[in-house]
């Protein structure tokens, strides 16, 4: 495959592959039937090809996740789509109190392989109830894994990894990524290369072509990639500050141990994410990093996220609430003094 593939195409192909190869796979969600193929078109072509296992449902997010859990309980591999991840709030009980709990509360492991796909995040003007990054609210639920889509991680591999855990998992998909292209063959652009590490989170490491120890390590979920790389580029070219970016595929569970050799090459670490401030993924990572690298770090882990605010609709207001390239760059630059 040499022509660059769009992320939405990659995701759609992954769902096709899953349904083609795995007779126990199902896809369920609102408005996913053809010809509509879902609000963001991830489901395009699926129902025409697999009408029995592609289930276009009523508007019932809690019910959809419950049905997926019932399918998982009977040994199937359902992938449920929330039209917008904001509506996963309606399925919070099913995820917390049924699907995840069933894995362990019956005294022996009950396999519950299921994926809840969550189109996530802002910068598209969808407004306060259609733009949130709710990953942080799902952290630390026993037996619930969280993944995030990225331009580095082939979605077929990601879905396979998620389903093989035999526990419920959520895939957060930054909506702005859909129209971007997948990176290939280790190349991000003229300045940056990447490699996939083989830690349990399948972290992608993005590094400047010339590869000395960096000033900063930035940890970020997939949705931040473009903004982080843009900030890294400016910092490199204009301020000679070198950064490496780590983009894990699995956000939770997450342990920094396997990445310690990588991260301890820098004396400054930043975690950047799109959630509103407080109670974030970054705080969890920071605690782990502080425990492991106490006294080695020049400063506390720098946490960057969206403002503690609703996400406004108007582009100019939304822009100031969410974490943008310029703010990222400025924060890193200031913290480098």
């Amino acid at each position, binding site marked *: 495959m040499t022509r660059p593939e769009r992320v939405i195409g990659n995701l759609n192909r992954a769902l096709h592959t899953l349904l083609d190869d795995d007779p126990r796979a199902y896809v369920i969600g*609102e*408005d996913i*039937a*053809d*010809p*509509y193929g879902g*609000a963001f078109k991830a489901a395009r072509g*699926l*129902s*025409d090809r*697999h*009408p*029995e*296992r*592609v*289930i*276009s*449902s*009523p*508007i*019932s997010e*809690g*019910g959809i996740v419950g049905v997926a859990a019932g399918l998982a309980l009977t040994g199937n591999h359902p992938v449920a789509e929330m039209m917008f991840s*904001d*509506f996963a709030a*309606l399925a919070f009980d099913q995820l917390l109190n049924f699907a995840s709990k069933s894995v362990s509360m019956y005294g022996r492991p009950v396999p519950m392989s299921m994926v809840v796909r969550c189109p996530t995040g802002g910068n*598209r*003007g*969808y*407004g*306060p*109830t*259609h733009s949130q990054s709710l990953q942080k609210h799902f952290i630390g639920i026993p037996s619930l894994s969280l993944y995030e889509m990225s331009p580095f991680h082939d979605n077929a591999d990601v879905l396979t990894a998620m389903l093989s855990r035999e526990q419920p998992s959520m895939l957060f998909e930054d909506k702005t990524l859909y129209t971007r292209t997948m990176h290939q063959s280790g190349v991000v652009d003229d300045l940056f290369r990447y490699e996939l590490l083989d830690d349990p989170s399948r972290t992608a490491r993005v590094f400047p072509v010339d590869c000395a120890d960096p000033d900063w390590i930035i940890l970020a979920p997939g949705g931040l990639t473009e903004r982080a790389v843009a900030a890294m580029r400016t910092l490199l070219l204009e301020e000679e500050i070198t950064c490496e970016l780590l983009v894990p595929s699995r956000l939770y569970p997450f342990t920094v141990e396997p990445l310690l050799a990588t991260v301890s090459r820098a004396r400054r670490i930043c975690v950047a994410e799109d959630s509103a401030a407080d109670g974030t993924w970054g705080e969890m990572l920071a605690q782990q990093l502080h425990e492991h690298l106490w006294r080695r770090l020049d400063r506390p882990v720098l946490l960057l996220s969206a*403002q503690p*605010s*609703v996400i*406004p*609709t*108007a*582009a*100019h*207001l939304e822009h100031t*609430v969410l974490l943008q390239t310029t703010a990222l760059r400025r924060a890193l630059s200031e913290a480098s003094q």
Partner: protein
Amino acid sequence: MVSAAPHLIGGSTTATAITAPQPRTGAQRLSRLPAEDLDTLLMIRHFELAVLDLFSQGLVHGTTHTCLGQEYIPVALYALLDEGDYVFSNHRGHGHYLARFRDPHGLLAEIMGREGAVCHGVGGSQHIYRDRYLSTGVQGESLPVAAGVALHLRRAEPGRIAVVHIGDGTWGEGAVYEALNMAQLWGLPLLVVVENNRIAQSTPTERQMAGTIQARAAAFGIRHHHVTSHDVAAVRRELSGVIDDIRTQHQPLVVEFVTNRVGPHSKGDDSRPAEAIRHAAANDWYRRYEKQHPEQFAAADRSQRLAIAEAVREVQARPASRWEHA
């Protein structure tokens, strides 16, 4: 062996009975309306067309849902409400807002994020709050809230009601039933207005709703009224008694409008078969009124088109909205 009828589960939606005949409204005569009503109808129509146009020019971002074909519902209904009644609108709410406030500038500014925006551009198309009018973007969520408001009104302002608009598809959400149960148990003056346009986004009603809305109201012992007319005057006549009843008797009511989505769900996402789209267009009150009352229509239509065009120009020229956030 598998005896499932697969088309009921997945499969292409084009094949199914999305074209189930609408009640034969096409033939029905539309009353000649007072200028004010016709003006409001046409204000909404041209507002919605302008919004779609702005989107297609790339001048607005995000999402929007126009009420093309459904304008007559709030215009008919709101004459039966007063300022003290609460209205909960939904994602398809421009017509509701305009019928209540006749303020295209404030709403357009909200959608475009310009000064004078009714919510400073924070809410946008789907999240509006003004006086006793509120909309939000999560389907079904407003029903229990409206029940809570009705509880307040019953005690503190008896005679007033809470009105909540939902679509047919929104009956998929459990919150709807929790609210109906409480509303009937507690005798709440709650009017649920169902705009049944026989589709939810891309999904025809028969693929997302088992049974009927009437039976769902009956499930809770709640009175249900079916409105098939698209005629503003007739709808008002039909509803004024039942709405008075809920004011005085403290009880909920479900009013189901059989209506017609003439435009796309959002923008450019109409996957209905061509025939269904033609059918919706043929039933559009707009074309029918034009045909039946050509002279009144032509003048009013021209003046509203111009007024909205002017509003667009004016609002577009405004500076960006400002927001002091806490």
